[in-house]
């Protein structure tokens, strides 16, 4: 939506300039393509912008923040690799101590050296109650951080939390700057300094973030010198501006990405993801809380049609939070579309066809509302398709739109078309989505799902480092979800990015639901080798 901003009196000056037919005036932004040689700048269009750029408030917590580095980072296969740490951590046998050796000679972009104290400061600040970090629960297992000299950091856990190393991708903030400011509102939240491959030049809120390469980056200076991330919420406008050559790359929904299919100058990348779309079936709704209804809906829904049409093939059918191609997926839990079976389940459970084909049981009509966030076309289309499928089985689902402010208070009884997904570890999704103690806790466990067997399995999975035991635990969860599907998982959606071919062949990571600044083909933009 927001086009390039025009600073200060620039706009008025331009009016005047036009009036006298002058040729040019000050530029609206400093980004943009170089005029010759290898393209050393990139402008990419993204849909959301972060609320803050401070790692202490949650920015870049899943790694890859461009401005910062974590102790570890992910490679293209989502395997952990050392970053600010010299190597992967040494884990004690009881799984309660993680020891990291730090990389030497790393400097923040202001020239000050990076030390173990910065790591301790970062983690301790996040855990501080006064810090408004919404995801501090992810470090629940962490008891304390300890610096041993300038180059060693030791983490002590309260319980052996299996995926802990995955959490240490979070970016490290400089104590000498952030430590002197109010953590929640200081200048650091908008003008961050880090060790990462790029330095922030300017953040025009709601419009774009401009970065320039960090020439002293410990991993080598990036070839793409200038990086602009244009924040364009509206998909149509993003597509239009990409087509107009305004942007070098952009994330697009499937239907719009499809319009670039024949474009020789642009390549479409489909990043597989853990990003699922799901219908919550609230336990406290008389219809949606009924196991028979849940099971019927689970087989009545035509996931393949959704993938083929709504996602234009860019995605996979989803049967749980774990995508079917993940090593954590439990083979055999796929549900095929079977309308007859759905009807039989309902018939057997006593849901008899009533007026207008809507089933009734004990005077209760098989009908419930389904909310989606207004303006989200992908969710709207999923919701409408789901409702159409349900109708065929005799369940009436009334699709409603609203903002989160409207939807949130209704989540206890009304179904919601929700999304989520974190690829790093199965615990990340399943713990928040399915454990009964998180029922109704904000956007955690929105369906108030309550299954003791699942609770037990999740608890077991997160507290052991033994891969076999973990696999068994998550298999249990996925099998329980077949028996009592408190959510109808619909699809895992591929994230589609259309990028100018001059940047060569790019790669993508497996992406989470919440694709931040650094997801997409530009996850490793510091390593790009632009063509001439």
């Amino acid at each position: 939506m927001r086009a390039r901003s025009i600073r200060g009196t620039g706009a008025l000056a331009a009016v005047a300039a036009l009036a006298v037919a002058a040729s040019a005036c000050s530029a609206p932004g400093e980004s943009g393509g170089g005029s010759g040689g290898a393209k050393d700048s990139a402008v990419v269009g993204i849909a959301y912008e972060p609320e803050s750029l401070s790692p202490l408030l949650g920015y870049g917590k899943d790694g890859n923040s461009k401005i910062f580095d974590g102790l570890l980072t992910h490679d293209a296969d989502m395997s952990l690799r050392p970053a600010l740490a010299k190597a992967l951590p040494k884990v004690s046998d009881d799984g309660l101590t993680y020891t990291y050796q730090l990389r030497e000679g790393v400097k923040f972009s202001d020239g000050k050296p990076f030390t173990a104290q910065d790591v301790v400061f970062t983690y301790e600040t996040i855990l501080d109650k006064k810090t408004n970090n919404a995801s501090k629960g992810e470090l629940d297992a962490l008891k304390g951080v300890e610096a041993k000299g300038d180059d060693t950091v030791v983490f002590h856990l309260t319980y052996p939390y299996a995926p802990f190393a995955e959490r240490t991708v979070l970016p490290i903030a400089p104590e000498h700057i952030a430590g002197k400011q109010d953590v929640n509102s200081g200048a650091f939240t908008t003008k961050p300094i880090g060790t990462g491959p790029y330095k922030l030049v300017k953040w025009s809120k709601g419009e774009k973030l401009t970065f320039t390469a960090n020439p002293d980056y410990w991993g080598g200076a990036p070839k793409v010198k200038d990086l602009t991330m244009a924040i364009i919420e509206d998909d149509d406008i993003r597509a239009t501006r990409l087509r107009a050559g305004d942007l070098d790359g952009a994330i697009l929904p499937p239907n719009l990405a499809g319009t670039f299919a024949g474009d020789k100058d642009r390549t479409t990348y489909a990043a597989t993801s853990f990003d699922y779309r799901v219908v919550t079936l609230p336990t406290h709704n008389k219809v949606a809380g009924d196991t028979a209804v849940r099971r019927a809906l689970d087989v009545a829904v035509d996931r393949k049609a959704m993938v083929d049409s709504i996602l234009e093939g860019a995605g996979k059918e989803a049967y749980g939070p774990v995508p079917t191609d993940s090593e954590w997926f439990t083979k055999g839990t796929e549900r095929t579309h079977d309308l007859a079976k759905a009807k039989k389940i309902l018939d057997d459970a006593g849901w008899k066809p009533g007026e207008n084909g809507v089933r009734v049981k004990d005077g209760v009509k098989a009908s419930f509302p389904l909310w989606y966030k207004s303006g989200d076309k992908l969710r709207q289309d999923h919701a409408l398709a789901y409702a159409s499928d349900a109708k065929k089985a005799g369940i009436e689902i009334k699709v409603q739109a609203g903002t989160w402010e409207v939807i949130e208070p209704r989540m206890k009884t009304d179904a919601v078309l929700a999304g989520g997904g974190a690829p790093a570890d199965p615990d990340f999704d399943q713990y928040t989505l399915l454990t009964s103690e998180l029922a109704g806790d904000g956007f955690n466990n929105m369906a108030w799902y309550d299954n003791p067997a699942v609770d037990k399995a999740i608890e077991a999975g997160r507290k052991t480092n033994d891969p076999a035991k973990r696999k068994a635990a998550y298999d249990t969860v996925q099998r329980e979800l077949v028996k009592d599907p408190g959510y109808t998982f619909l699809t895992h959606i591929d994230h589609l990015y259309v990028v100018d071919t001059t940047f060569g062949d790019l790669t993508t990571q497996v992406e989470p639901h919440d694709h931040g600044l650094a997801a997409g083909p530009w996850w490793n933009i510091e390593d790009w080798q632009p063509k001439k």
Partner: protein
Amino acid sequence: MTFGKTAPAPGRIPWGPMARMTGRRALFAVPVLLVVTFGAFAIAAASPFDPVKAYAGTAGLTASQENLDQLRANLGVDQPLVSRWWQWLTHALSGDLGDSSVMRQPVTQVIGERLGWSVLLAAVAFVVAVLLGTALGVLAGRRTGGWCDRAISSLAYTLQAAPPFWLGLLAVWLFALKLGVLPAGGLTDTGSTEVTAGQVLSHLALPAAVLAASQLPWFVLYVRQGVADALDEDPVRGARARGLAPRTVLLGHALRSGMLPVLTLIGSRVPELITGALLVETVFSWPGIAAATVEAATAVDFPLLAALTALATVAVLLGNLIADLLYGLADPRVGFDG
């Protein structure tokens, strides 16, 4: 009326009366703005809108109650309506219109950066609409009931019924997608580092054309009516009887009298122009103030919305003033008394 008064010296602009009229209008604007801004606050107060949650954004959804309460106190939302309004007003007078939550900038900065582009778009569209509308209106009004009139009037009525956003979308489809001759939106190519007049002009063409098309019918129909009526009146009869060429009669007499009612109503077009700009800027992602208004509304950005509503009111009053001044200048029978 100035009947009986001594005639003003020919060719001299009556600055004095014009300045006095401007002054009177400025005085009238004060209560209008007070009422409008107070109305905005009253609507906000009556609505379920919670400025605290709006300020906190999505973080507000998960923020603790304690946190929200603190924010509530900081924002002064606890105070009664009148004192909040008064506070806003006094701050506004000192140039502080608050911070826009959606743009994450001070409201004054948002306005400063975007107003110029909106004025450019609106002015170009308005001038095109006036010129083209006058030409078509004269063509149609010259011979009402003729095929030319019917074609032009039908087109005008149809254009008037067509929503500008729909016209805009079709224009994008045709000119940007099918023909590929004009850019579909924005102000400049993002790839370039300068705002060049050429780029702005090519990006301006479609939105200005669509905005002009949305304003055009009104001008066409009023000029047509004005010319047709004037053609039936004595001054034109007199001019024809004098043996003036038809073109002179049409342009020098019928049009000049016929344009008068149009002039008086030009001021009333400012709201319509703003309405059109709201839609056109959104369709073409023109970085103007109207597009910002829509964004502010979608995100319930009250400080920005309130300021922009007041700004729009000022624009309307200004439009009325300019129209009346023009009318006074164009028609010597009318003074500057209003």
